[in-house]
């Protein structure tokens, strides 16, 4: 046994991380995969059994996943995915993700019964103010996954939710059933040009006029974020945006995941993993 290769402590699915004291908020854990299905040709829905600590995840927070490799090489960095659904009663957390590169292609190979190494819950989640009666969430693409749990939580607190879901066409409006359960769904599509900024602006202005917009939440599109930011500023509506950036540690030390923010006219870099991923909409700069 003089020759031991890549026996890193917790090779995907190999051995159990040491138990962590309870006052430590996050953990590295191995989660059995419960189910893993294609939602459409690009997106997959992953359900894993979660430990009590993982179940403390709040909407907008994320986990950093050690994806299995899709090829003969190893994957050396984790991939962040925000929580898509928190099933407290069932002891499960769910992810909804798009297959884009090696990491997500590798993740897609997991089968029910396999185990996935996750680190989390991580980051700053969405904030829900008790005074809000009605919120608007506006998402596109993977942003829908990130916005789902805050919509659920809001509905659970008796807050009205309007979910504007933007997509290429009908097939890519995902989770509309989930959003439908918790509020009103307004799909806007590229295929019929209803996703044009002008149209989304009309819809948002309508909601503001109807007093159905006490707060804005957005994720997944720079174009839509800029729109929401402008309207929020004009109408004095508090807003939150969930951001993405390539990560390494996911925990704060490495400063890999920085993005630009603007606070009182001064630009600064913040780490998406620990100062976010949810930020004040007015401070986000976009690209």
């Amino acid at each position: 046994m003089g020759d031991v290769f890549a026996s890193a402590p917790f090779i995907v699915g190999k051995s159990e991380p040491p138990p962590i004291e309870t006052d430590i908020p996050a953990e590295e854990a191995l989660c059995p995969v419960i189910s893993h299905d294609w939602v459409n040709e690009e997106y997959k829905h992953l359900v894993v059994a979660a430990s009590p600590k993982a179940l403390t995840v709040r909407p907008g927070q994320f986990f950093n996943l050690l994806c299995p490799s899709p090829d003969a090489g190893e994957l050396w960095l984790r991939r962040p995915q925000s929580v898509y659904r928190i099933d407290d009663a069932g002891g499960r957390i769910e992810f909804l993700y798009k297959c884009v590169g090696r990491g997500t292609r590798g993740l897609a190979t997991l089968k029910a019964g396999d185990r996935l190494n996750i680190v989390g819950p991580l980051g700053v989640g969405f904030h829900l103010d008790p005074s809000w009666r009605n919120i608007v969430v506006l998402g596109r693409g993977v942003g829908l996954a990130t916005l789902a749990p805050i919509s659920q939580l809001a509905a659970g607190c008796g807050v009205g939710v309007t979910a504007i879901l933007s997509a290429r066409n009908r097939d890519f409006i995902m989770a509309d059933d989930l959003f439908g359960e918790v509020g009103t769904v307004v799909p806007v599509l590229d295929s019929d040009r209803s996703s044009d900024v002008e149209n989304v602006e009309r819809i948002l202005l309508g909601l503001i006029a109807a007093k159905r917009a006490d707060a804005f939440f957005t994720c997944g599109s720079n174009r839509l974020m800029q729109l929401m930011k402008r309207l929020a500023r004009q109408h004095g509506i508090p807003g939150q945006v969930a951001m993405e950036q390539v990560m390494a540690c996911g925990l704060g030390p490495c400063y890999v995941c920085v993005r630009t923010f603007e606070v009182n006219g001064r630009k600064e870099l913040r780490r998406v993993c620990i100062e976010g991923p949810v930020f004040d909409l007015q401070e986000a700069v976009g690209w």
Partner: protein
Amino acid sequence: MVDMTVKIGNVTLKNPIMPASGAFSTELAQVMDINRLGALVAKTVSREYRIGNPPPRVAELECGMINSIGLPTKGIEYFLEHQVPDYKRFTPPLVGSISAQTADDFEAMTRDVDVPEVDVIEVNISCPTRNPGGGNFAMHEDHTFNVMSRIRKATAKPVWCKLSPNAGDVVAIAKAAEAAGADALVIANTILGLKINIDTFRPAIGNKYGGISGPGVKPIIVRMVHQCSKAVKIPIIGCGGIVKVEDVVEYMLAGATAVMMGYIIFRNPSGMLAILDGLEEWCRKRGFARVADLTGAMIDEPPMETFAAAAAPIR
């Protein structure tokens, strides 16, 4: 019971497992009990606020990662006022890491971090992500000697000098650091590399060149640790590509007194503690009462297996 303590000059660590600068902060307490570590090693700090390099700041390689963070820092004042007290909420000794562009500033920085709360000063003269040519003090014997001498005179604290694996003759640099009065050597920082995205034809990271870390660099750095351990008397801290117990053993056999780990923190945030436990277990199984006995225990003779013996006359 295995005695896990190691001595680096006059600093005794309760075990040889340390994080590497730039991969660690107290934020790791989110997922692990950082009080179990041999020491806490802070991110390199320089005098002024530095924003760092443009993203993307990392990319994956065949056997690890390439990074070019560019030493972002909030500057020395912020470090002393906010970060040092933050570290002091924890028990392991604090290693502060400093960087500067001139020997003058290195000397001044040394005086600045020479506060009671900082137990050790690590001198980062070897970050390849600041100068894309890889040119830094640790690339040159005389620069190393000069800057380390100035630092030595400026403080009575233990000073650890972090070397660059990009130097052609790392042994000469090690000797220069020792001659200048360094208390220990950290071998090494990252290896300068380039990854090109063959779809976009552009570099994979924002700063073009970056530092390679992770398992692929281990055999190179283990060699440097061994070469230097034969040439200097001061302790060596091995750093590069450690992801498992066996890697720590290999570094110690090669001559390291302790180790530091960066990459593994990203892969397995609780990995350092798993390795710490595993190392104790390994020592127990192999009958080592003290982990320190592994240091330099490599038998510097060819393998004795059958197949080595099979070509006897060429010895």
